[in-house]
């Protein structure tokens, strides 16, 4: 053909020219992996096949370093834990039965590296990608959350990354009409060139609407719909430019995908209409590895094969080579399998929503994935070898030789532990502490997110969980919290991961919901470093063991490795997302006392130990060392049961988890939540736990919650704690008139001053916005 743009590398040609040099190393494949591909095919791969294998066998898509560890999530489960699990790990997202015919799907993923390169688009497409995972399960997306981690707050590059990421998360999520109901924000210099942008999406559906990604039924059509395919996000595929005859084509394509939330919003409504009409047999979103991933996943999960004509793909850039088309990560695309009988209905729905589509091919019965380009076969593979049989590595791992020294470096007695404020100076210290980057109010960020859209948000930031109503008739709904304590995890990856799990569990229970499912996003450094691999292995073991102890299954998640720059890895950051169910979301418990709770008794549940290592106070003083707080998941489970029952029985009107920043932070936040003060006396508790006031205020012992109890319910409250043998202590009363957090006998902290300190930090660093 005279107008042919490429040296088309066909299967026939590959068989005839075994010695042609291929850029496998540039595409990220290892020598052994390339040899394995040749063995599987019985010949050298074509350029297009090489593109497919290289992306699908990448760490990101194949989990080759993490798979051997992740198996524990599937192994350490009981039948009891699985009873509400309708779809488990391996699909786009897990699905949990929450009763009344409703099912919920949620998942958390990372979009770290793109968000560093291009903060706005990286973060935006992170939201877009996870939302498409939710849609592909058949669900209507109903909320998003975003755990974010940045470098030092005063580093010049943070001023570039943070505003861009926040605008990107908001710009995409707000435009999709999804309330943002929570997340986390952490500043630490370990994230300087490796910000972590994790995004969670949750969706709801009726049981009968669950969809999965598989291509079944010989003769069924394979259709690509949504946005056109362009050259964005193909990054490494540029080395395949040797396919190209000329060098006049656009060479500098963005390696980061560009998002169009409008296209995605239309796609959501369009997909929901397809599901409602039962028009699609199988559906798969296009994310990482684009068409390579979608075709090989759909084909290998089905019972036959698939034939696709790549020339049918609608292109935004007509100069793309077949390899680039296969690898393109253009956003807002979906692939569906549709019976010939449903094709007309499918086309009608596409026309209604003005969505472009093209029929690429069909399901075949030969078990092969074949792809043609202008009549020539350029891919002929067993789809399972692409999608599921990638390499698996038993990466060496070993406890780092620096771990002992780190654990021996206790905060108490260290150079950083120079002055422990008492009395009047405690007031100023708490104000300064609550203004610190990691303790300050994050409303500057959350006020840039729509928390109201859809009209079902019962709780959102700054409460401990986001709570969303699922069923308007009954009030049935879900609570979600995401938590990670990377500092604890650095000190002891096994215990730190468990502590992160415990905190997420506690946050969900604090809102009044029964925790039922976990999704996790595991952010670590390079798996090729045995130190890092040990952190990873220990953290996974911690989460898997912890889930078993708590009786809550992992339903899915994501692994992000190689988060390091110049040999310096991030703190191990396993983010745990917990979902809980509540029968009536109007019974949810907020994280602070309101004016109408004036006079209520304030209790502290749990006991405090001398556990300052890894704490926010230690960070405030520039220290990281020692051992993290002791994790007791049996106690957490008991506490969770208590909180859920107390919420249901109306025994508590406010509940706030005691975690980062200890009791000092929990009391400050509970007072600031509605601007209502409290009189607090800690003498008896300090005596009971054998601690001085400072340690009681700043220790981060787990298993603790501050609650406010109506006077009329105090007896029942105490009876319930006593009956279940959970430690409790009355530490004060809500005092609406005082306008202060009054630590009696020590200092009264004016709430206006505390609020000014707490809320001023982000605006001072990143500019003023209208007050929330």
């Amino acid at each position, binding site marked *: 053909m005279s107008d042919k743009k490429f040296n088309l590398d066909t299967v026939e040609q590959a068989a005839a020219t075994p010695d042609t040099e291929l850029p496998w190393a540039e595409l990220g494949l290892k020598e052994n992996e390339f040899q394995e591909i040749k063995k599987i095919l019985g010949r050298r791969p074509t350029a297009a096949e090489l593109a497919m294998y290289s992306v699908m066998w990448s760490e990101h898509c194949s989990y080759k370093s993490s798979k051997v560890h992740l198996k524990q999530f599937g192994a350490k489960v009981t039948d009891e834990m699985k009873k509400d699990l309708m779809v488990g790990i391996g699909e786009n997202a897990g699905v949990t039965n929450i009763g009344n015919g409703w099912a919920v799907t949620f998942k958390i993923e990372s979009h770290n590296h793109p968000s560093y390169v291009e903060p706005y688009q990286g973060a935006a497409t992170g939201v877009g990608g996870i939302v498409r995972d939710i849609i592909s399960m058949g669900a209507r997306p109903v909320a998003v959350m975003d755990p974010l981690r940045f470098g030092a707050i005063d580093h010049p590059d943070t001023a570039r990354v943070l505003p861009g990421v926040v605008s990107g998360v908001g710009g995409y999520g707000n435009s999709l009409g999804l309330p943002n109901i929570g997340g986390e924000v952490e500043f630490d210099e370990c994230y300087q060139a490796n910000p972590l942008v994790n995004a969670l999406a949750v969706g709801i559906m009726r049981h009968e609407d669950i969809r999965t990604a598989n291509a079944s039924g010989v003769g069924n059509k394979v259709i690509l719909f949504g946005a056109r395919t362009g050259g964005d996000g193909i990054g490494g595929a540029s080395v395949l430019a040797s396919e190209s005859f000329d060098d006049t084509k656009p060479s500098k394509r963005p390696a980061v995908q560009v998002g169009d939330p409008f296209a995605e919003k239309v796609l959501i409504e369009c997909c929901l209409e397809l599901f409602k009409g039962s028009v699609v047999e199988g559906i798969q979103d296009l994310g990482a590895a684009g068409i390579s991933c979608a075709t090989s996943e759909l084909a290998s999960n089905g019972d036959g094969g698939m034939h696709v004509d790549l020339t049918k793909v609608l292109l935004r850039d007509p100069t793309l080579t077949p390899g680039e088309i296969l690898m393109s990560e253009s956003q807002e695309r979906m692939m569906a399998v549709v019976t010939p009988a449903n094709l007309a209905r499918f086309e009608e729905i596409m026309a209604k929503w*003005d969505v472009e589509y093209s029929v690429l091919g069909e399901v075949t019965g030969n078990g092969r994935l074949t792809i043609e380009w202008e009549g020539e076969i350029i891919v002929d593979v067993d789809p399972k070898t692409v999608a599921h049989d990638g390499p698996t590595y038993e990466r060496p791992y070993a406890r780092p030789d620096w771990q002992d020294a780190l654990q021996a470096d206790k905060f108490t007695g260290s150079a950083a532990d120079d002055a422990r404020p008492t009395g009047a100076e405690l007031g100023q210290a708490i104000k300064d502490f609550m203004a610190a980057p990691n303790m300050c109010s994050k409303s500057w960020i959350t006020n840039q997110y*729509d928390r109201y859209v859809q009209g079902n948000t019962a709780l959102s930031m700054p409460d401990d969980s986001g709570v969303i109503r699922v069923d308007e008739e009954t009030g049935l709904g879900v609570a979600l919290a995401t938590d990670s304590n990377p500092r604890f995890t650095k000190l002891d990856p096994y215990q730190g991961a468990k502590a992160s799990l415990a905190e997420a569990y506690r946050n969900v229970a604090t809102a009044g919901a029964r925790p039922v499912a976990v999704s996790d996003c595991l952010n670590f450094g390079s798996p090729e470093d045995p130190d890092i691999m040990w952190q990873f292995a220990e953290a996974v073991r911690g989460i898997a063991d912890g889930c078993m102890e708590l009786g809550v299954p992992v339903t899915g998640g994501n692994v992000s490795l190689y988060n390091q720059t110049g040999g310096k890895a991030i703190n191990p950051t396993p983010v745990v997302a917990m979902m809980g169910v509540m029968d009536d979301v109007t019974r949810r418990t907020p994280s602070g006392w309101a004016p109408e709770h004036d006079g209520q008794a304030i209790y502290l549940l749990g006991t405090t130990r001398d556990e300052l290592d890894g704490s926010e106070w230690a960070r405030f003083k520039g220290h990281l060392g020692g051992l993290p707080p002791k994790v007791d998941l049996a106690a957490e489970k008991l506490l969770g049961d208590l909180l859920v029952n107390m919420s249901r029985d109306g025994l508590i009107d406010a509940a706030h988890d005691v975690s980062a920043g200890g009791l000092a932070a929990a009391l400050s936040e509970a007072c600031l939540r509605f601007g209502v003060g409290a009189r607090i006396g800690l003498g008896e508790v300090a005596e009971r736990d054998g601690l001085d006031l400072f340690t009681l205020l700043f220790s981060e012992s787990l298993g603790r919650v501050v609650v406010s109890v109506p006077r009329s319910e105090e007896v029942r409250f105490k009876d319930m704690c006593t009956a279940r043998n959970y430690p409790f202590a009355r530490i004060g009363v809500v005092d609406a008139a005082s306008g202060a957090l009054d630590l009696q006998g020590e200092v009264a902290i004016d709430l206006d001053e505390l609020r000014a300190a707490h809320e001023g930090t982000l605006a001072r660093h990143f500019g003023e916005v209208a007050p929330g």
Partner: protein
Amino acid sequence: MAESLAASEVPLVGDFSQSTPNPALADVRVGVITFPGTLDDRDASRAVRLAGGTPLPLWHDEADLHKVDAVIVPGGFSYGDYLRAGAIAAKAPVMSKVVEAASAADNPLPVLGICNGFQILTETHLLPGSMIKNDHRKFICRDQTLRVETNQTSWTGDFAAGQEIVVPLKNQDGQYVADPKTLEALEAEGRVVFRYVDVNPNGSRNDIAGICNERGNVVGLMPHPEHAVEPGFGPSSSGFGTVGLRGGADGLGVFTSLLNQLVKA
């Protein structure tokens, strides 16, 4: 307290002890338009339903209002806000019918534009002025206090003039601008319907949050009354006194105002 008052004296807004709205209200059919990129259509429909009326979906591409008694142009990012917020939606077939009916000499159609809907109404010139980016250039979501400046419109009759209400505000192109002559006319003719109180969240001229046309049947505002219609899911404050956590439902009055006016008419 309501029992001792005559039925006509029962406050129509701010009192949620009334569990059964007037059944006659259900006969009022309120169309809610969906454009590609509309986000708050289901919320607006819920608000109509909670106020006692019957919502009816209208599709952007259909030049037919299906004999509805009123129309809500809801919020969102119609057509991705590409070109200019509301600019493309203003040219949609359904909007030509809305403009025609809203401008009719007799029984002009009541129309409410919320947020993006307000932007669309200014693009169709049913309402004067325009919205540009917030002065601080960021998307902002906050519980916003508004003053209802006039109850002489189709959508504010249940309020007392001067009443303060709290409803969510969430936008990024919310700064209301108009030429000085238009602003002067709006003020002089009492056509500023809602004004920001305490905080002007986006730099709008004269603290304007919402306006109406000459006859008061067309109202547009940037904040979202449809997100303050149901205790438990609204703002945590109210212009009618203390409410519990997310107990604010001040926005419901906008929808009951319409229904009550149409039932009386």
